[in-house]
């Protein structure tokens, strides 16, 4: 076992452990912070595998943007900071499904590869990824822009009940929208 393997294993353990904590903790804020650890550990794994761009994207977008957004949402909705006991549901179905899926996938992959050694491809540098995206995968990349645009517009439409409300501005429309 090389140092890389050990590092991967350790990061994997951190990721799985913090993921379990995310779903098992009763503090909303703590769950968000554990998520930072989990996603950060995954980013570390990417780094170990020399996929630097993916690693930084992971840190910037998931750790930086998404989790911060989550925490803001928690603050803005005035969710309780302390433990929220009423939130908990029985955990065993989730544990069963999550554990089953994880172990099953692991078993499948182990079965498929056994002890074959796979040479690592070239490092996942920004250049290489850019090349891939703009030579082999231009089409899905461009189509994704339509997807993002529609997601953007859709999010605005859903969050602004006043858009498209009848011009006469009767008060009912706005209230009804908010009460959803």
């Amino acid at each position, binding site marked *: 076992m090389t140092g890389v393997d050990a590092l991967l294993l350790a990061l994997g353990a951190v990721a799985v452990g913090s993921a379990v904590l995310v779903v098992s903790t009763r503090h909303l804020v703590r769950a968000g912070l554990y998520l930072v650890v989990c996603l950060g550990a995954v980013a570390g794994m990417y780094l170990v595998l020399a996929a630097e761009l993916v690693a930084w994207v992971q840190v910037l977008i998931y750790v930086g943007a998404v989790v911060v957004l989550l925490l803001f949402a928690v603050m803005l909705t005035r969710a309780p900071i302390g433990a929220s006991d009423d939130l908990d549901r029985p955990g065993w179905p989730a544990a069963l499904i999550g554990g089953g899926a994880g172990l099953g996938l692991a078993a*499948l*992959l182990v*079965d*498929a590869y056994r002890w074959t050694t796979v040479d690592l491809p070239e490092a996942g540098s920004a250049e*290489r990824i850019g*090349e891939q995206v*703009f*030579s*082999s*995968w*231009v*089409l*899905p990349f461009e*189509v*994704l822009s*339509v*997807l993002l*645009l*529609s*997601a953007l*517009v*859709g*999010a*605005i*439409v*859903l969050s602004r*009940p006043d*858009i*498209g*409300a*009848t*011009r006469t501005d009767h008060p*009912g*429309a706005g209230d*009804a*929208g908010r*009460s*959803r």
Partner: protein
Amino acid sequence: MSEQSLVQAVDHLALLPAYLAAGTAVLVLLVDLVLARPVATVVTATSGAVATAVGAAAVGSGAQRRTFCVGSDCSYVFGGRAALVAALVALLVLGVLALSGPLLRAGNTPVGEFCFLLTCSMTGGVVLGAAGDLITLIVAVEVLTLPLYVLVGLRRGSLASAEAAVTFFVVSVVATALTLLGAALLYAVTGGLHLERLGTLLADEALLDLPLTTVAVTLVVAGLAFKVAAVPFHAWAPATYDGAPLPVAAYLSTASKLGGVIALLAVVQHALPPEVTGPVLALVAALTMTVGNLVALRQRRTVRLLAWSSVAQAGYILAPLGALALAADADARTAAFAAALAYAVFFVLLELAAFAGVVALRPAGADGGRLDELRGAARRHPWVGAGLAFALIGLAGLPPGLAGLFAKVTVVRSLLGGGAGWLALVVAVNAVIGLAYYLRFAALLYSSTGDVTPPVVRPARAVAVALAVATVVALVVGFAPQIVLDLAAS
């Protein structure tokens, strides 16, 4: 890889339909912003949909065009089938726009955003038909579906609509995750993502024996089966259809379902081994039609009945694929795919007509309501009622709905040609169950109302036109089904 030039030749003519569709979406957004007049927005969307359909037909009439190629594998293959799908999706969008007339006029729905989201979805459908690799395929399916999460939730102030949107969103995201996981595992097994390349790679016996391959294939098929609303991945459909505004429900059960079918067809035909997918799909098809029909028997709400019936219809669409494993040679397999596609074409036509009829007979902006609310509707509106009854009979697969009859005949023929007689019998028995509720619905339209006087509804002109066009087209392909069969086989 690094010595390859980053500049590649792109066949812009092949991409024309996609450009037209995406351009329409952007144009709709701009027109809405600049002119801020609902009529202008709708006109833009309408003409864009027409242009897309025409463009697709024009490009598709030529030879097959391939672009975005890596070696011999291409991400975008625009041939006869892609043209058919693109044109069909564009026409369905046109039909849905017509059905949306009363909804948009009733206010409460943002016209510009509605049209924009619908045309975005159309873009997904256009690209989907031509997708040549798994990534493009999944992205296209997502582009087709994502705007619908919002559209489903557009009935402001309706709890059902919001619930429908959330259900649809959650289920659809899970389905996409499954498909993506499957695609990733397939990549892990084969190292390929292009459909045809996957097909050649998976012909290898050693790979097929891996449990991982089986799981990957199952995940991809299951994820896409969600989109088609095939049993056991169907539970979202009735609630979502019923909660959505009627035109959006029409779109869900036609264009969106067609998209799922096309994605499934592409994956099964080009990429996945028929020995694995055939039996799975046969079972799924048999379950889907039986469960869909049996549950539809008990429905009391119009849209729920149509939703369950469309679940059942998905079973008929998938049925020809069930014969894949038994099909003797490549010819028989091609025939099975053509039969599935032909059935899908007949189905979306009749389903659109059925929804158009329901929209026409309901007050502007209302939901589908209970079946009883349509009692005697055909006596008050003989033409619209006749159109709706015709569509329902067609869905049941009986004359005078010859289009539906030929659709069933196509499926049964391909099944018996492929040696899956038992599935043909299942289809046959299901046709009988199906008739029970379609007939109940159609007879209800003509029964007397008794002493209850229902509210007077004037069918909107656009809706009536959509119904008339759909009915006339259904009549034409009913007498000349060879048109559809040829298109589907191209």
